[in-house]
């Protein structure tokens, strides 16, 4: 087995205390592949001070996972390490209700977010968030590597005497109800799958063996100091073990006399339903996985296209420089298409030689042909493989005029958003005087209110109100010197558009609110799943006045919600990949026109449930 990606290649032997580090290293290696991040819904990790663990986030759950090192020892067969997995839910997550009371209490403390970040320094405090344990074992001579997850299928603790509210008036937990009622294994599984998939990828080989055993843990009674009885119910403890390399070289772990083997076999053997399609069987060879075509979105390598708009002097270049450095420090590339000839361009020092900046030699993008834009993008993509392409419109361009052209570039780029910068210091005047500035705000999918340091709170509030009159749907961030972490603005994952980030809830607006201004946005809600063919039909026959349609929809022929992106007559449907509990909807943006084709969808969707 080749461990050289995660352990020093010329080392002589591996000490047990270096073992937990290899798990973190395998994640670091795997995350150098963009598809891996998308496949696992990776959201980043952060080490704890002192190196005793780390925290990470996955798209599967909104909270934070924590991994801490419990112990590490050298055994006869080689080094082993035991780690504890924790899950720290967000304070408003439902799952918190099913966790121990101590966890509920801790999660409602104001210092909770900061404490989670350094949870490894608080082993006692984090105890109530522990959900499973992970063993990692390495056989001598690197012959085999084993990773196993030991977790309770369903953990239930009944408060026999209840837990009264502090004021004695009623119950926090009524007598006989469950204080803890948590499917721990299910919660730990996404992280375990990510760890195993990362190991497959960084070892470059698929596992040779999967075993699952389960045993019964009989229930027991405990008594708190103040005499309350708690009953821990019988529990099934499931151990999933995965081995890479020569499985005979690792001792069978966790096999107690009363454990029952459920599954034992290689990748092509009889596997339990839930791990049949687990990522760890495939991530060792991403190219093959891409050819299999099951996870097309994860392998979508088209650069994202961001249209950067904003009136003259709003801070577009400053913002762009931040974006450049943010991606450059992550070894990614941002390419820029500018047409501000003679203006201060991007800081040349950041990109010496700045070959990744294409200047379109027509005076203004909105007057050029899509052809030259496409040529520019093709050239950039071929030489630099950018992560993001930013189309920096001039301060006097109307983004709505660009949307038509962008629709034609779908095979080259993935349209992300129109980002508009607004200069808080001058916005009031400019928005009153200038139609183009108002359109820039209306067209925005993301609004950055810049130069907030130059205005007082009252002015700022007034400007935000003014902006909200023009555009109530785009998320707005306030910055000074255009300083904002791009990760807050752009979701780098094509599949995982957070529904909340996509569109804030907005009141139903039907025509007329800004009819005289020229552009309106109209929202349609759909109570029932849509018929796919009908939707396509409606989109094709959309009037040309509609520039942009976005939304999250459910279809009768699929369980998963899907994201619709429609720009300038072309559209794209992709799976949302996350849970979406609100009512499906569409928002259409454009000049006032007859939108009956869209409204008809909602009238007829009940009748079409196929």
């Amino acid at each position, binding site marked *: 087995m080749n461990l050289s*990606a995660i352990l020093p*290649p*010329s080392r002589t032997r591996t000490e047990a205390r270096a073992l937990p580090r290899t798990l973190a290293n395998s994640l670091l290696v795997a995350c150098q592949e963009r598809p891996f991040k998308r496949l696992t819904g*990776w959201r980043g990790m952060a080490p704890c001070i*002192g*190196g005793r663990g780390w925290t990470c986030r996955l798209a599967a759950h909104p909270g934070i996972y924590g991994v801490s090192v419990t112990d590490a020892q050298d055994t006869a067969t080689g080094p082993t390490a035991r780690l504890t997995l924790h899950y720290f839910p967000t304070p408003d997550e439902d799952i918190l209700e099913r966790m121990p009371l101590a966890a509920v209490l801790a999660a409602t403390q104001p210092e909770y977010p900061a404490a989670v970040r350094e949870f490894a320094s608080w082993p006692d405090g984090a105890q109530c968030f522990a959900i499973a344990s992970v063993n990692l074992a390495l056989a001598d001579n690197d012959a085999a590597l084993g990773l196993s997850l030991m977790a309770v299928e369903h953990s239930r603790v009944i408060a026999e005497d209840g837990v009264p509210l502090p004021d004695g008036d009623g119950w926090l937990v009524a007598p006989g109800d469950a204080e803890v009622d948590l499917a721990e294994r299910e919660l730990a599984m996404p992280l375990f799958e990510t760890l195993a998939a990362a190991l497959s990828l960084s070892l470059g080989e698929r596992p040779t063996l999967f075993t699952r055993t389960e045993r019964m843990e009989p229930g027991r009674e405990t008594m708190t100091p103040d005499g309350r009885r708690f009953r821990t119910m019988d529990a099934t403890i499931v151990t999933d073990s995965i081995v890479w390399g020569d499985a005979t070289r690792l001792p069978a772990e966790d096999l107690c006399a009363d454990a029952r083997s459920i599954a034992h076999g290689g990748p092509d053997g009889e596997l339990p339903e839930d791990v049949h399609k687990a990522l760890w069987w495939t991530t060792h060879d991403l190219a093959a996985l891409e050819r299999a075509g099951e996870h097309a979105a994860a392998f979508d390598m088209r650069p994202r296209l961001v249209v950067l708009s904003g009136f003259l002097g709003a801070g577009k270049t400053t913002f762009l420089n931040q974006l450049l450095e943010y991606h450059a420090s*992550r070894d990614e590339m941002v390419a820029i298409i500018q047409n501000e000839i003679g203006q201060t361009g991007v800081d040349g020092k950041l990109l010496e030689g700045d*070959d990744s900046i294409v200047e379109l030699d027509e005076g203004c993008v909105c007057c050029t042909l899509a052809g030259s834009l496409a040529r520019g993008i093709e050239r950039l993509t071929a030489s630099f493989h950018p992560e993001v392409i930013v189309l920096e419109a001039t301060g006097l361009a109307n983004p709505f005029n660009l949307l038509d052209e962008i629709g034609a570039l779908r095979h080259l780029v993935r349209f992300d958003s129109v980002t508009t910068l607004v200069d808080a210091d001058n916005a009031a005047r400019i928005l009153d005087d200038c139609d183009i500035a108002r359109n820039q705000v209306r067209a925005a999918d993301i609004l950055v209110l810049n130069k907030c340091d130059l205005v007082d709170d009252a002015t700022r509030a007034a400007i935000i109100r003014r902006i909200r009159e023009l555009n109530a749907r785009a998320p707005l961030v306030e910055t000074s010197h255009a300083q904002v972490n791009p990760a807050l603005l752009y979701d780098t994952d094509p599949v995982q558009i957070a529904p909340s980030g996509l569109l804030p809830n907005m009141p139903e607006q039907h025509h007329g609110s800004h009819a005289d201004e020229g552009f309106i946005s109209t929202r349609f809600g759909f109570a029932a799943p849509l018929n796919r063919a009908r939707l396509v039909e409606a989109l094709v026959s959309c009037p040309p006045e509609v520039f942009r349609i976005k939304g999250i929809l459910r279809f009768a022929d699929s369980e998963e919600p899907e994201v619709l992106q429609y720009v300038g007559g072309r559209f794209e449907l992709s799976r949302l990949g996350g849970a979406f509990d609100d009512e499906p909807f569409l928002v259409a943006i454009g000049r006032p026109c007859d939108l009956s084709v869209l409204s008809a969808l909602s009238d007829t969707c009940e009748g079409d449930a196929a």
Partner: protein
Amino acid sequence: MSNDKKVSRRDFMKGAATGLCVGAFAGMGLYSYSPWAYSRLPKVQRKLEDFGACRSVRVTNISETSWFNNAHLIGDIHEAGGLLVNQYTLNWAPFANGKGSAKGSYDEAMATIKDLIPHDLEKAWEIQKGLSLHPENPGGYSCLIEVEALDGTITKYLLDTGWSYEWMDASFKREGIDEMLKAHEIEALFISHEHWDHFWGLPVTTKYDPRIPLYVHDGFYKEGLQYIKDCKHTGDLKVIKDPVTRIESGMALLKFDVPIINRVFGETSLAFNVQGKGLVLISGCCHQGILQFADFAYTNLKYDNDRFYGIYGGLHISPFEDWDPKYDDLVISLGKWGFERIGCNHCTGHLTAKKFIEAGYPVVRGTARFRSASKDYLGNGDKIAFGC
């Protein structure tokens, strides 16, 4: 009777009022600074390894411009298939074979120049330029470190040896490194990590002094170890295995096991204890992340005043994409350690350097000579001294 009641009630109040103040002060005095009080706060266990002290450290930046065009570099990497591609197959000089992106091979490339290094580097580089992608892009990272011991003797070390034979040879000559090497004045060469811009210029060093002791991380791959042989290095090769290796009094090499892009493993960085001042950290790229670096030094080493005094080098922020974008403020985090002299360059990021300056950190400014881009950086040919 009622009067008595009044008196006793007054007495009670007098006692209670006195007791309240006494009790509160007693609590403050007996508990506040006690071990029990601190058992409530999280603790970091520190090893406080004593590695001696030196009087001062001077760094001369031989070159920090690793490459001249970022777009070409990143473009080439992604063209070849991304960040996991083995750096020896990217087809950059001196490991180019003319077959184009991702088709390079160590052996084929070495065959073209093996007989020329290290004595005829001009010709070797010329051949390789003809075979490689973006032949004008390479630069290199290298610096000279002069450590003044407590008794006043000065020892010189090299950290890294750059990339382009042509550029590095010129840079060495500019700073007089070639003469020092010829005179065997330089005690050792440390290679921070196996990356192209820190390691591939090795023949420029062995050309002048093939017997120089060489320190490398045990994460070097076989190509790297072979290259050391092919550069006709005859001196002592030390492969570092321990987390902390003492080099001389007040100087230690710290080892970090972290995977780096393009199949490179691990980075070593230097730590110095400057007498009466505190700790000085010097790194190549700091791929382990500056906060990890500082945290590791804080947890493991003992240094004067228990203060962080200076830092020099490329300051990569973190190998970890953090999960909370709101928390990505390196500027604030670095402020926590309170360095007194910061010399940053190379892969720090110009905006980051600018932000340090805006935040009022003691950034030592440079002169922007010899193709260094910005005065916010310690550029090529600039010097920084710690402790004198």
